[in-house]
């Protein structure tokens, strides 16, 4: 599964002219209105925008949980429109990790089992799944909490488990929808630092939705959306990863 190296040519994630409209009765809402976006390898991008601007809709399309009305999403150069439901599912358990605001952990399972989930879905053996999940939990600083259930974890810890679950598949990109939205500022900062560290250490690209400017500031690039379109882009700082890429 480790076909992709940072040197690969295709961008981990790219959206071209995305349109998504919802029809409720006779009223049509355009949640996305011709959106273009490209994430470079190893890049950490924040998406900001007012509520209802289409951020969640965008993420759902990017990870193949929904299909656009028009336009195309490419993951590592592969157009998602060419994949069927199984193909999209396979994509989520191999190339794209997903993190939700609502954690979305299985309440009945221990932290480690939750992290094993995508490996299990891919049919990995028990041993392999256990080893990789443990290693990942240690990496997110939860080596002591392997056997805890979600309701025995704090919000910040639960979100770290969710992040571990997204990263355990060694994806090309992690997509996170308001990962700190349900957390207090202290644990929120912890989660952001973790994402940043994983981005730097493991070289995984990250696309994160947030509406907290402080959170967005952790990113290499901030994309601001309004009414389903990108209205501005902004680079808060020259990050090591970008600098390194520039040198390479």
């Amino acid at each position: 599964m480790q076909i992709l190296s940072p040197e690969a040519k295709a961008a981990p994630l790219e959206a071209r002219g995305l349109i998504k409209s919802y029809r409720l009765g006779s009223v049509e809402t355009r949640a996305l209105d011709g959106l273009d976006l490209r994430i470079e390898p190893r890049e950490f991008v924040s998406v900001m925008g007012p509520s209802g601007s289409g951020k969640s809709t965008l993420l759902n399309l990017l990870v193949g949980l929904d299909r656009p009305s028009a336009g195309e999403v490419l993951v590592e150069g592969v157009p998602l429109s060419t994949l069927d439901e199984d193909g999209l599912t396979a994509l989520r358990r191999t190339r794209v990790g997903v993190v939700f605001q609502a954690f979305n952990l299985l309440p009945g399972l221990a932290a480690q089992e939750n992290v094993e989930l995508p490996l299990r879905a891919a049919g990995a053996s028990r041993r392999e799944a256990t080893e990789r999940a443990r290693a990942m939990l240690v990496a997110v600083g939860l080596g002591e909490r392997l056997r805890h259930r979600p309701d025995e974890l704090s919000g910040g810890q639960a979100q770290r488990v969710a992040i571990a679950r997204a990263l355990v598949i060694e994806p090309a990109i992690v997509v996170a929808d308001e990962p700190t939205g349900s957390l207090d500022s202290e644990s929120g900062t912890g989660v952001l630092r973790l994402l940043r560290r994983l981005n730097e250490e493991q070289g995984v690209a990250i696309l994160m939705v947030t509406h907290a400017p402080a959170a967005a500031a952790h990113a290499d690039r901030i994309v601001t959306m309004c009414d389903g379109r990108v209205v501005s882009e902004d680079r808060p700082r020259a990050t090591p990863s970008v600098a390194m890429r520039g040198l390479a």
Partner: protein
Amino acid sequence: MKALRAALWLIEDVALPYHRRHVARAALTLLGVAIGCAIVVAVELLNRSVVGSFRETVETIAGSADLQVTNPGAGVPEVLLEAIPEIPGITSAAGLLQATLPTPRGELTIFGVDVFGDQVVRARQFPPEAVTIPDEFAFTNALDSVALSTALLERWDLAPEAAIEVAAPAGRRVLRVRGTVEPRGPAALYDGAVALLDLPAAQQLLGRVGLLDQIDIVLAEDAEPVVVRAALERVVAGRARVHAPRERATGLDGMLLNLRTFLSLVSLEAIVVGIFLVHHALATAIAHRRRELAICRAVGFAPRALALAVALEALAFGLVGAVVGCGLGVGLAELALDAVRGAVGAIYARSGAGSLELGVRQVMLALLLGVGTALAAAVAPARSAARVPVLRHLRRDDGDGREGAPRLRAMVVAGAALIGLGTAGFFIEYRSTSALVHLFLMAVPAALLALGFALIVPAALAGFVALLRKLVGERAPITVQLALESLARDPVRRRGPLTPMLVAFALVLLGASMVASLRASILGWVERTLAADLYVVAGPSLPLPSGETFPAALEARVVPIDGVAKVAASRLVYTQLGERTVVLRSLRGRLPFDGLDYPVREALPDAAESFARGEAVLVSDDLAHREGLRAGDTIELATASGPRRFTVGALVVDFTLDVGTITLEEATYRRFWKDDLANVLYVWTESGVAVPAVRRAIEQALEPVAKTSILTAGQFERDVSGALDGALRLTWAIELVALGIALIGVVNFFLVEVSDRRREMGLLRAVAFGPRALGRSLLTEAALLGLLGGLLGVAYGGLVSWLVVSRSARLVSGWSLDFVFPLGLAATTVVVATVAAVLAAGFPVRRASARAVAELVSME
């Protein structure tokens, strides 16, 4: 393979913990499958035991005979025994007479054979070395001599020369033990309660001089069976039938058709009930786990893996249920064996004890059923698991229910079409002797109807709510309005508990109306035809063709009794009509029978006269239906004096036995069948006399000569309805189970519903409502659902009952039943449904409406 691995993991880590948390529900589901399998296994075991042991008995008695000559009821004329050995290819032929007689210590089966004959057949049935008779001369010379099985001798603790009192057809007789038989072969049957008599003595004892029950025949080694059989058939033509011993059990199969169809119907009901239980359990589990499934889909589980997991989960339920069901089935069969064997023995044929051991066939059947039931039930839940709307359940603000508008109109059209198709299915005309065919042709249209009704349920719900809204309008309290609004919002989903309720209540009604129709038809007929005041019978209860008898001459002792206006003896025997075993009844008089008023379906103009002359017979309409007979047709019956032809004078309604009945004028019967026994004396009293006094007088007159009991018309009817109730008790058990499912369905629905709507409830609480008002609104919703479920159940149940009673019952049994709809039960059903729904919803609703608002609003 990968999907399988993923699915197995899902079961282990997601499904199992879920069921561990809901142990009671899982156990109930298992029980549902188990009961379904158990009933099928029990029916199968009982059938095998009864038919199988009958076959075994027949074959044991036949010894190693290649062919038999029999003539059920009338008996085989003994003269044939002279002609048969002359036929080329036949080495040996021997006659046998058999009867089971009551004794003070229990039943004794006696075999009348040529004890000292040297026939090959006899030697193989009762080998000379197994029969010990110290004084052969004394044995043969005294007509009361018997050789008793050593097993019985020991059990009854009898000494040689001991006396045994038996109730013979012609009255009480005393037999003396003058020999013993070792219990093997036929002598080991019936727990060894067997006695051997010399043939003439047996004929005397049983009042059947000159007659045999069967002639057993052994062919020469080099004989061509087909040729010999043809020759034999020419010799006995019209006086008896020729068949291999094995073929007799096939006849029993035919006689038991109605019983088997009925039992199969019960099994089918059990399976339907099982399917609904499993379906509901899985659907509920899936509904509860929707969010978990959505998460699994989001992190990379393929839809296939989720569906597979549900199927495997169902499979586990099916397998475990089947295994438990096998055990339950054996227990159930054991409980029912005596009753079933008693009923079959009394009505059709006596047999020894059959084994109830599980065979490979029963285990396979149970596994097949369990797995089939579970998988059938898993189809829809598996699909809904695979298609779980991922996004909806991943949102933080879950539960806003943005769903496409239900295609109500399309569902109604499809539903109506299915209902039409199902109804039409009941009107297919066919004739069959296979219980499976009948079952199939009943089950498929009934299933189509059920599907059709299930499809129109949402529209019915929408219409029902719209109607209520129009009726109560703005005046209704806010709690009721809230309930109506919630029901109207998503009728397709709210149908959840309605479909199982509908089917369960319909099953209850179907069973009840079948029972009511059968009862009303039979009891109405009994009342109409058996208009005598007193009935003298030989046994303790209803007269049956294989039951006890007394000499018809007893009639002469009753006639002179004061207060008796008229007496008529009647005989019931089995006889052969072609390949079919039917009941032959002798009756005195003209049509209508001086008070014995048979409802006539069709008759020749001179039917009464030609019946009185003994030229015409009455044929029951069920038999006529099966044989395609009309008034004016001619039938041939094998009598003791050779074949005789009779005109079908009339087709009458006759519920005597489900094998069909032919009624013949009394004197004609006596003449041709050379039979002077009777099963019953009909006694009419003079008007104005006290019936109890007459009854006592008859009792006194008959006491010294025969063992009889005297029933009044009321007792007679009570016996009939008692026998009916006994036979129909099984349906009630099934219906209780069906009702149970309906309730489980409602409880589960509200458990899921309440947990799904926690947020909505929290909002309502936060905004305006106290816990009571909220609870009331939810309970109103439950009551309305229950009411509608009850009404729809009555509609579907009414339609299916009418079709089954007026169409299927006729096609299976040939009987035309009067359809009786159990109105009272229907009304009760609606009330029970409503109350049950409220009670079932009460627990989850109370729990939820008492929760803190904050708890309801927060999700994690």
